[in-house]
């Protein structure tokens, strides 16, 4: 069928026509739908559970709500009061915001130097920074903790911010550098001829063009820090712990208190889901540019 399609069709239209034949296969559709169900039902199950009365959760499966609906917001109320959940929700924000802003700025400056200032040993240093992405953060935790204890800072926000900043830097520099290299050199030359110093070139010429790059990395770092467990387990004291740590703790100690766990888990998942869904475009862009961290 594709031969006699008129040449006028654009590439995309042409492919749309082609793809219709492909999904016509019922088996293919069935597999796609099955995968989609398998990826959605577990989350939906816990979400429904979080709105069910405590007694119902213990007595019957969440799927029974379709014949016998009973919903309540009590679980959310209790979850926020229990085990400092509200406090840890606040902590999650307080940890995340500086731990996203600070590495972005540091990485932008470093990437600027790597991309647009010519100096001896530039490529070797850049390769070294890039290579440091290899280091699993596990390797760094004990010496860092020892250092923080010596400084008398252990357990505070300050060490958590510092650690997240450091762990985010290699990837951030790498990504920002990639994006920055794509900006035409002529733009920067022109600004320099006009007598602009580094600071003006950086803020007036580069920054506006880098907004998508900043958004890409910003989402990564946001999700990474918000969802992190290992760094906060190691460095944050109980009082300054984020939601992930509190929920992981609840999972161990009250394995059967599903009314608390389900509501708590969804409170913690709400924020990244909103960020992700509203900025998905940038996230995918960053992902395809090589922005993945273990």
């Amino acid at each position, binding site marked *: 069928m594709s031969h006699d399609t008129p040449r006028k069709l654009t*590439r995309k239209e042409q*492919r749309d026509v082609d793809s219709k034949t492909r999904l016509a296969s019922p088996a293919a559709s069935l597999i796609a739908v099955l995968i989609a169900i*398998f*990826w959605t039902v*577990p*989350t939906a*199950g816990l979400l429904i559970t979080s709105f069910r009365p405590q007694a119902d959760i*213990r007595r019957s*499966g*969440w*799927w029974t709500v379709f014949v016998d609906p009973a919903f309540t917001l009590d679980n959310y109320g209790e979850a926020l009061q229990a085990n400092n959940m509200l406090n840890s929700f*606040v902590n999650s924000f*307080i940890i995340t*915001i500086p731990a996203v802003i*600070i590495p972005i*700025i540091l990485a932008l*400056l470093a990437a*600027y130097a790597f991309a647009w200032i010519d*100096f001896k040993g530039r490529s070797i240093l850049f390769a070294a*920074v890039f290579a*440091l992405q290899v280091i*699993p953060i*596990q*390797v*760094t*935790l*004990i*010496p*860092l903790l020892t250092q923080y204890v010596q400084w008398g800072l252990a357990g*505070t*926000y*300050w060490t958590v*911010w*510092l*650690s997240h900043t*450091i762990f985010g830097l290699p990837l951030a*520099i790498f990504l920002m550098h990639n994006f920055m290299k794509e900006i035409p050199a002529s733009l920067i030359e022109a600004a320099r001829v006009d007598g602009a110093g580094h*600071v003006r070139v950086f803020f007036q010429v580069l920054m506006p063009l880098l907004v998508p790059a900043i958004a890409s990395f910003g989402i990564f770092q946001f999700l990474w820090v918000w*969802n992190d467990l*290992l760094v906060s*387990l*190691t460095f944050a004291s109980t009082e300054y712990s984020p939601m*992930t740590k509190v*929920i*992981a703790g609840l*999972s*161990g100690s009250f*394995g059967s208190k*599903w009314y608390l*766990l389900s509501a708590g888990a969804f409170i*913690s*998942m709400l924020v*990244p889901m909103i960020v*992700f*869904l509203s900025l*998905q475009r940038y996230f995918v862009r960053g*992902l395809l540019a090589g922005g*993945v*961290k*273990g």
Partner: protein
Amino acid sequence: MLWLMKPETVPEKIFVMFLAIALFALVMGIVLAVVDRPRLPKWVPVVGYLGPAVLLITFGLLWPGLLTIKQSFFDHQNIQFVGLDNYVRIFTDTLFLTVLRNTFFWVLIVPIGATVLGLIYAVLVDRTPFEKLAKTLIFLPMAISMVGASIIWKFMYEYKPEGVNQIGLINQIVVMFGGEPQQFLLAPPQNTFMLIIVMIWIQAGFAMTVLSAAIKAIPDEIIEAAKVDGATGMRLFWWVTIPSVRPAIIVVLTTIAMGTLKAFDIVYTMTGGQFDTSVIANEFYTQSFTQDQPNIGAALAVLLFIIVTPIIVYNVRQMRISEGER
């Protein structure tokens, strides 16, 4: 000054947060102002722009990394040199052999499982009317924390004794088909595979996104030519689509393998590493922080580093190839 270190109320905490950001901005502002003055030697701006990042990376990654390597050759008090003893223990003690075996299963099954599912799904929903929604559904687990995903799946695996209503979906299905409800997370070795499913569930969205982009980038001419030669359906998939996205597949496999090696959250949240489910990343934490054996922890971390490195090198090479083709 104490509350700067230990703020107690929410307003205090928020104030400290803004103070930290302002302090950082001030320091960076001063640095930039100093290095931006005209007629300074050329290395001054380089130091100003690169210095803070390089300093932090050296302090927080390089230096601790070296200390950990050293610690892995010493005893648990970090005083007595013990040579390779810590490593020997890891490779001889049954506990650690189980950990190594589990890690092997994880790093073998998760990348393959996630990539295969992601690839199939990417092909199936490609250019269908509901592509965007379909992709978002699979992708969403990437946004939530591994802790959240673990809770979601722990509930799926929840067990109630026979005769009582099941509240976990999987046991409900087992019971519906006349089976006996099972404690999925307690019995080794199957419990490790139950945890692996969770990681596949998280990672498939990543595989799908990257592979979907690669599939869309296959030149029309290639597909046209194959169709002229009579390739359709499965044959088109095997002989045209897969070879065309091969570099992307390798990037995805290796990236997921790295993520899997370092991931500790799922095991920690779902079983705490008990019932023979521990992996290197989790055992590192247990040995270092709860068993008070930082020397074994250090050796495990170094081992992790040694396993991850070749995968990353390979990954970067393939990424270059993959980008060249894009």
